């Protein structure tokens, strides 16, 4: 399998605080890779560097053979990477459908085509009944769904999901897992997900990368990683939702 995304020795500090240090991560084409680790480990910071929000202090980021570090967020999106925000950022004053239409316009030739595509995605993520509601009226789990819907609407080849299952009930979580599996299988969408809900990570990810204090401390198949003593010590031993 060739790599869709390669994070090569990336580091980032915030005013002396080392958030990420020399991280190497490969996401193979068509794969689903989980990124786990305790709060403050640097997971979101890695996403933000891939998405062009922060410039890395060191290292390279390569997407489909092309360097993308140094690109602006909109250029990263145009390169084929969609992302959700851990702290959701809905367009509060717009309806659910309009939120997703904004994303769909990225590749759609015109507004009506974008609306049509957006309506399909809204339906697929179970927001169909709420499509005319303002995004500000949604509950947190629905806002997370909206994040996913909007990112998917840009027709990415790689989707970065930042804790989108948090707060979902187990059945809702299973539905979302099923939706991602389906998109991954049917459209070959590559997914990298940050997730604390181990139930979702174990069900989805073919490979897991564990981050701790900004460094990768373990990587491998889910079954191996969860038995790794280092991982158990710093992360899975304590505050895990299963």
């Amino acid at each position, binding site marked *: 399998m060739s790599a869709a995304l390669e994070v090569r020795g990336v580091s980032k500090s915030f005013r002396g605080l080392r958030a990420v240090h020399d991280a190497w991560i490969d996401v193979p084409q068509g794969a689903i890779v989980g990124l786990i680790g305790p709060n403050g480990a640097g997971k979101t910071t890695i996403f933000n560097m891939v*998405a062009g*929000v922060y410039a890395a202090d060191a290292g390279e980021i390569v997407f489909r053979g092309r360097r993308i570090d140094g690109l*602006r*967020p*909109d250029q990263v*999106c*145009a390169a084929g990477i*969609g*992302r959700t*925000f851990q702290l959701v*950022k*809905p*367009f*509060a*004053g*717009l309806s659910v459908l*309009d939120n997703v*239409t*904004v*994303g769909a*316009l*990225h590749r759609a030739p*015109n*507004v009506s085509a*974008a609306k049509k595509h957006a309506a399909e995605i809204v339906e697929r993520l179970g927001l169909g009944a709420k499509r005319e509601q303002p995004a500000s009226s949604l509950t947190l789990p629905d806002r997370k769904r909206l994040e996913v819907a*909007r*990112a998917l*609407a*840009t027709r990415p080849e790689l989707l970065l999901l930042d804790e989108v299952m948090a707060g979902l009930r187990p059945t809702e979580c299973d539905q979302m897992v099923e939706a991602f599996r389906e998109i991954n299988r049917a459209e070959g969408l590559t997914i990298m997900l940050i997730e604390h809900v181990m139930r979702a990570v174990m069900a989805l990810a073919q490979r897991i990368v564990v981050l701790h204090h900004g460094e990768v401390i373990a990587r491998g198949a889910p079954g191996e990683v969860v038995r790794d003593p280092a991982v158990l010590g710093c992360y899975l031993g304590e505050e895990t939702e299963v």
Partner: protein
Amino acid sequence: MNRRAAALLLALGALLVALPHVAGSYALSVATLILYFAYTGQAWNVMMGFAGQLSLGHSIYVGVGAYAAGALFFHYGIGPWAGLWLAIALSVLIGLVIGFLAFRFGISGVYFALLTIAFAEFTRIGFDHLDWLGGPGGMFLKVAQRDQIDLANFRGPPIMYYYAMLALSAAALALCAWLLRSRAGYYWRAIREDEEAAQALGINTFRWKMLAVTISSAMTAISGVFFAFYYNNLFPEQIFNIGRSIEIILGPVIGGVGTLFGPILGAAVLTLLSDGITEALAAFGWEIPGIKQVLYGLVLLAAIMFMPHGIWPALARRIGVDR
């Protein structure tokens, strides 16, 4: 737009077209003023209401537009139809300079608003020193006979100015309605609501904000051209005054920022209110200095407290039309 909204709009249009034939000259001048603010408010609304970029210095575009067309007429006898293009070009150029400085260097929110005020103030001071344009003493356009219409030089009776402003307001409404439904409208509102999320969805926010500035400043320049040929006298102290900028934004703010009809309704309410207070005070014989401003301010305060999103959204819900 639903049926009822279309019917109401049509009725309003018919009423406004017929108005000069029933209204007296005073009422016609008030109506012209309302339309002037309705049009200019719509222009400002493109930038703030649609794209979320707060300009508190829109008087700069009115002033530059007015002086550009006014100077061509004053010095060379060139009529406003040609002057219009110079007015638009200069205003857009200034808008793009402000936009470039702000958006390239991450100046946003109140700091952006301050930058727009600063530009308007600098321009005012600059014009005070431009003798070619009359300096602080002002520039006066020759007033022609008011009883015959000279379209080429935009000189004529009040009714001509009324219809010109009506046409501009209607055109602005149509343009804004179209813009909101277009790609630009979606992108602007996304930027307004959350710029970082908009960028993540592939929107080049710099470029789309610059487009909003371009359209808004171009539209406002036309207000300036109208101003010059309607009032025939231009003073930097007046036209670039920050009070003028505030006047422009009060209509949309009271009517409903970001809505299509809010700026129009707001302009009507405010102009009629101001006039109504003046007449009521005269009728009661009250002559307390500043009382008019106090009353006006109190009504504005009440409107904002009870209808924080503006009068139009509240009214639209009540009469069953979409916003």
